[in-house]
């Protein structure tokens, strides 16, 4: 695990100066309930940024609000210089925001191949070739003809990530990619995310698995009750441990 962490962090771009995503005062509602109370966060190009927090802190809602999946949201979400608030979901996706949801959302009535090729390309530049995707996820090649509903949890997660690499989106939002998976699969997902980072993808990650996140992330944002309560770089992690344990209840 340590070797992998070093490999991932070694390539942390010191020149990460261009802000890809800038969220300011983001508030969001599910029906009547007010979930996000003003989120401020930023993600720079080539970074892996992780949202930490207990269940119900609003991590998933933050990703969904960026993607436009919540009905009501106010504030500002600027991606690649464009304001996303007010745009419909599909337009946001076409600007280059890719979302891999917690439930993975593999379509059971589609084959693995159909799932993989479903998202239309949004940009030719930066799209990963299918061969490259298979080199990251060799299992998928063998399962291409299977039904999407027949995959194991790990295979579903790999397919869900593979699906959004083909489109040319360079900004990925991954919601709990390790949830419910066996340790060996978690390691494979971790290696993949490290590889994606090396290749210059920008990643906003939501993780409950704190140890997993600590090996990958450049920076952390800690959430509680729909607010960001803390933010720090990976290098400050050791010093923050006590406070984090308190905030996360781990």
């Amino acid at each position, binding site marked *: 695990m340590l070797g992998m962490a070093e490999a991932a962090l070694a390539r942390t771009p010191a020149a990460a100066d261009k802000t890809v995503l800038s969220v300011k005062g983001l508030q969001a509602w599910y029906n009547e309930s007010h979930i996000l109370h003003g989120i401020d966060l930023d993600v720079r190009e080539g970074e892996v940024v992780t949202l930490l927090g207990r269940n119900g802190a609003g991590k998933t809602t933050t990703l969904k609000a960026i993607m436009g999946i919540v009905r009501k949201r106010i504030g500002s979400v600027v991606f690649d210089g464009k304001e996303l608030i007010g745009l419909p979901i*599909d337009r946001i*996706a076409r600007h280059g925001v890719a979302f891999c*949801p917690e439930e993975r*959302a593999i*379509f059971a009535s*589609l084959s693995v191949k159909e799932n993989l*090729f*479903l*998202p239309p390309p949004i940009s030719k530049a930066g799209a990963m070739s299918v061969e490259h995707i298979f080199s990251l996820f060799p299992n998928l090649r063998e399962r291409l003809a299977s039904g999407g509903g027949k995959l194991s949890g790990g295979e579903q997660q790999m397919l869900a990530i593979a699906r959004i690499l083909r489109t040319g989106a360079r900004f990925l939002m991954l919601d709990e990619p390790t949830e419910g998976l066996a340790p060996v699969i978690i390691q494979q997902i971790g290696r993949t995310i490290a590889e994606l980072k090396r290749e210059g993808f920008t990643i906003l990650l939501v993780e409950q698995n704190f140890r997993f996140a600590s090996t990958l992330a450049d920076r952390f944002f800690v959430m509680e009750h729909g607010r960001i309560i803390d933010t720090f770089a990976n290098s400050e992690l050791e010093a923050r441990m006590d406070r984090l344990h308190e905030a996360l209840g781990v």
Partner: protein
Amino acid sequence: MTIFGHTISMSQLYGQLLIGLINGSFYALLSLGLAVIFGMLTIVNFAHGAFYMMGAFVAYFLLHGLGLNYWWALILAPLIVGAIGAIVERLFLKRLAGFDPLYSLLLTFGLALIIQGLFQNYFGASGMPYAIPKQLAGAYNLGFMFLPVYRGWVILASAVVCFATWLIIEKTKLGAYLRAATENPTMVRAFGINVPRMVTVTYGFGVALAAFAGVLAAPINQVRPGMGADIIAVVFAVVVIGGMGSILGSIVTGFVLGVIEGLTKVFYPEASNTVVFVIMAIVLLIRPTGLFGRAA
């Protein structure tokens, strides 16, 4: 041959089989449209019969108003009526998305009554004749019976259109979008696909299938406002038997029930109008999701 006290000749049997296949062609086309619409919009489209009737009327207007013949009508009527369907979706049905399906059911039911009432007001309840195109006039002598060319054409055209629709939905990229959006529309949107537009087009396409069936029906039955209401009850029974939203189920069940109905006319004519509903009741008791339906 004597069954249930009826003496049956072979030509009578084949004749009813043929009529069954023809009715089945219409059931299949109409229930396929309903299945496509239900799969994507979870709307039970009670206006389907009205759109079928409109297809026949558009064919009639094209011929007598613009001098465009049957073959033009076969292409133009589905396009025109399908476009009207798309407008209905945009104006009305779209606003009911997310509500109980009962609302859209009531809306389309009301629409059907209004459309049918308007046509009856302007064109009367009696039918207007639509001539069989000359290329399809006459009959083949099959040896054991005469097959009117037009009836053979209806079966062929319906089978081809049903198969093509199935092919598009099950085997193409567009079909994959449709199936995916049926499962999880939000996620399909999150991939950058304009799902609301797809919903409108899908409704328009389902309606166009009904209009296509209407054009096919025009030379067989007369063109009259009540023609949709007459057939739609049986078509809904077909959809229930096949399983709501099942593409293949609606096609197969459509043809099979047409034939069963035809055979019933031969062997036990008294039951021919009810046999489909009896089968529906039995299927609902044994397999509530329909023969081809998946459990929800």
